């Protein structure tokens, strides 16, 4: 770890101010990615702006339109315990990492990092959720821009994520044996106006929507409706844990299982 300064603001406006001054600063959410990167000397910010003291971006509530609103600084364990209105999302949060990760890592931090194998991006995209930041609102479809890349600008903080609650939904994760991140994770959500299917872990471009499956499931929400439907291996991640073809195959299997589990 290189030496750095740390600020622990308690108000969002102070955090924004710190992130926009002349010092090279990086926001620190739960630190589940950034701290290991610092320890390995893979990152060298001059200053960390720790968001864990900013209470106004924590918590879970239901908006007037029924959307489940989760503060960007809410840790996974709190989502697991408090997102009962959206059981598939609560279950996803309950199965991220281990208890230590779930009690430190935050939804905002995970989304801003956009690890290609993280769970939350699939929930965001499959739910057509909205990311609320200190500057604006960003639709899920506009948020992710490829592996570890999002449309967030420097100094922009995720304050809230608004999830429309679907009629049915489920997230299935097929774990990579070592990291237990998603080798392939699929979030399926059925809304009145159609079904959305988001896939994490598989693609070199990060989380993506599987449009063929969405179309088939929108007319018939059953595992049978997508039997035989498959993705090509092109553009899928290929590594020691599985070939591109294996991941493409798993997307079909895991999607069918998610549909079946959604009921």
């Amino acid at each position, binding site marked *: 770890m290189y030496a750095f300064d740390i600020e622990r603001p308690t108000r969002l406006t102070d955090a924004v101010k710190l992130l926009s001054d002349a010092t090279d600063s990086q926001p620190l959410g739960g630190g589940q990615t950034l701290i290991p990167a610092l320890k390995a000397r893979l990152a060298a910010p001059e200053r960390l702006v720790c968001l864990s003291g900013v209470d106004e971006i924590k918590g879970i509530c239901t908006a007037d339109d029924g959307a489940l609103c989760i503060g960007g600084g809410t840790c996974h364990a709190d989502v697991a315990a408090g997102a009962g209105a959206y059981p598939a999302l609560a279950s996803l949060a309950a199965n991220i990492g281990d208890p230590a990760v779930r009690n430190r890592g935050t939804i905002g931090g995970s989304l801003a990092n956009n690890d290609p194998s993280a769970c939350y991006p699939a929930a965001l995209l499959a739910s057509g959720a909205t990311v609320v930041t200190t500057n604006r609102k960003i639709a899920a479809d506009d948020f992710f821009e490829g592996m570890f890349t999002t449309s967030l600008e420097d100094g922009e903080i995720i304050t809230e994520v608004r999830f429309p609650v679907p009629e049915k939904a489920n997230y299935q994760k*097929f774990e990579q044996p070592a990291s237990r991140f998603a080798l392939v994770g699929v979030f399926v959500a059925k809304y009145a106006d159609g079904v959305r299917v988001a896939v994490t872990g598989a693609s070199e471009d990060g989380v993506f929507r599987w449009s063929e499956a969405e179309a088939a499931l929108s007319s018939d929400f059953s595992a049978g409706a997508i039997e035989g439907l498959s993705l090509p291996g092109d553009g899928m991640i290929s*590594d020691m844990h599985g070939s591109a073809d294996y991941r493409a195959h798993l997307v079909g299997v895991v999607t069918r299982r998610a549909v079946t589990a959604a009921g």
Partner: protein
Amino acid sequence: MPKDGGIGASTKRREDVRFLTGTGNYTDDINLRGQAYVHFLRSDVAHGRLNTVDTSAAEGMPGVIRIFTGKDFEGIGGLPCGWQVTDRHGEVMQEPGHPVLAQGKVRHVGDPIAAVVAETREQARDAAEAIELDIEELPAVVDMKAALEDGAPKVHDDLTSNLCYDWGFVEENKAAVDEAFKSAAHVTTLELVNNRLVANPMEPRVAVGDYNRSTGDHTLYTTSQNPHVIRLLMGAFVLGIPEHKLRVVAPDVGGGFGSKIFHYAEEAFCTFAAKALNRPVKWTCSRSEAFITDAHGRDHVTKIELALDAENNFTALRTDTYANMGAYLSTFAPSVPTWLHGTLMAGNYKTPLIYVNVKAVFTNTVPVDAYRGAGRPEATYQLERVIDKAARELGVDPIALRRQNFITEFPYATPVAVEYDTGDYHATMDKLEEIGDFKGFAARRKESEAKGRLRGLGINCYIEACGIAPSNLVGQLGARAGLYESATVRVNATGGLVVMTGSHSHGQGHETSFAQVVAEMIGIDADQVEIVHGDTANTPMGMGTYGSRSIAVGGSAMVRATEKIINKAKKIAAHLMEASEADIELKDGQFSVAGTDKSVAWGDVTLAAYVPHNYPLEDIEPGLEETAFYDPSNFTYPSGAYACEVEVDPETGRVTIERFAAADDFGNIINPMIVSGQVHGGIGQGIGQALLEACVYDENGQLQSGSYMDYAMPRADDVPFYEVDHSCQTPCTHNPLGVKGCGEAGAIGSPPSVVNAVIDALQSGGKNVTHIDMPLSPSRVWQAMQG
């Protein structure tokens, strides 16, 4: 029912109080006044010519005390190899130098180039980043067969090739074996890989060097399984420090699994630098660093052939193995694929003719050496896989095929130079069939199939040679060390004892089970007995702990020393009771005169030994302290039969272990709970190898599985509850306790049954899959199912 604290009792482990409450004293807990910290700058390329190492900028960095490079170690010994193998042509192996810090070339990712000593760890690391390196990258050799091709880049320019040795065993049998294959009714052939593993003990390695300028005494605190061996190797061969000026301390050590047997460069460096700088120097390995510096395990590529006659009797066995040595010869590396592997190829079977060929190969990878089982798991895996394949090809029951070929008469001299003293392979197989509930398997398979899963049952037997080893024998085989063990028993005036053992405990529970043996012999409570180990200053010269040797060899030394104590105590007791020594009996801590009601307590005798007012001073010396060295006359041969039941998800290839049963014969047992724990841990590691652990290098010699993000260690939910039984006991005939050793059995015995079970499951689903190389990850199993 054995008395708590005596032999046979499941006495709770006394050491766990400190381990579980965070009050252990590990090497990293040791901090000396004025200590400096070293950070090693390591090669990030697998093979390269080291043109310049420019430390000038780094030397001016804050906190830097001194930067060492290979130049500082010119004229100083390199790390020695403790075993010399002679090849099938009578030539000794090629033995390259192994400098403490790289000289001229770097040969694997992780090879240390420079050592920065600074006031703090972070300062040392900062300065290491400022060292300017000019390395001319050379093509790396990673694949063993490619490394042996003509024109392959040489890991060591001064050797004739990358071949360390070409070993044949038993060379005289080769023609007869080849002949037997020609006349065989059936031959089963299997090519397989025994996957390279990273040991990953919970505690990474640490070394603290210290030097006392006024006395000239060196001290090294280190994470070692054998402090005396380190003292001898480092003192005599690397740094030229005589043993009486060098103390090596291995305090609490958090697991070793073989990887802490070896003498490593960092130990020599810290000892050397402490004197050069006149300050203690400490190194703590990071987990990332451990992946590229701790010796790896296994990494064999083998073709095995089994010949059978028309009645399915095994008639001959032939193997052709490539064994990876890595970039340098680690301390005991040459012995693992040879004498710890070839001698076990008979397994539990009366195959009359066996020939083993092993080519040991240098590559641009981390050195490979002994890892839990060391050679014996590689032998067992090949043999038990090829037998299973043969049974399938012949359409016979794999258990019946094994039983038909079991060795049943003991002692049994194998065609691979060892003699099994005892064993009862049918008994352990009978026990396995019972605890594995094989009768219920068909119903369980149906249940799995109803869920869309394939279920398989795999079994295997194993035999291992433990209690290493008769010194005169291993000396003939190339060992540059003796392999006896030692114990000093010091009785205090008021009756308590301290047993100082040359073996070392790094999680095995010796402090509990060793105390049980001595307490039982004297008939006192175990809490009267203290076990001391791990410090060359207060233990007799001993060879340490590996190869499941501690109770068989170290325990035997302890028994011999305790016998001497008892014999002397009886003389004192005879004097005190004015009786004949021949009439003295010791029971429950009381000395009595046979046929009378006269007795004296243990404590009365020990007090008399140290307050010899009424004492036979003309016949014996006062005091009660004895030392014994024990050199075994043979190895011990634990054996057993294991069974694994798996479910395979045919859509994803994911394997889950549903049941695991182990029936072992360890001879006599001191503490059944500790033995079960050793078996549990061993099976967990075996399942790790079979399903999860893949140490993968790319073609440039970069370690792709260099962290827990990619290297999968077994976790609690990867393993089932085990059915473990060790009631089949054929005691060892040649050591005083009749014990055989249990530390490695689980890791040796479990991988084949896991793989056999997966093959069985896939075959039950109509898939013609005959082999998959470990680890059987979901992607590999799925790929195999695609045909």
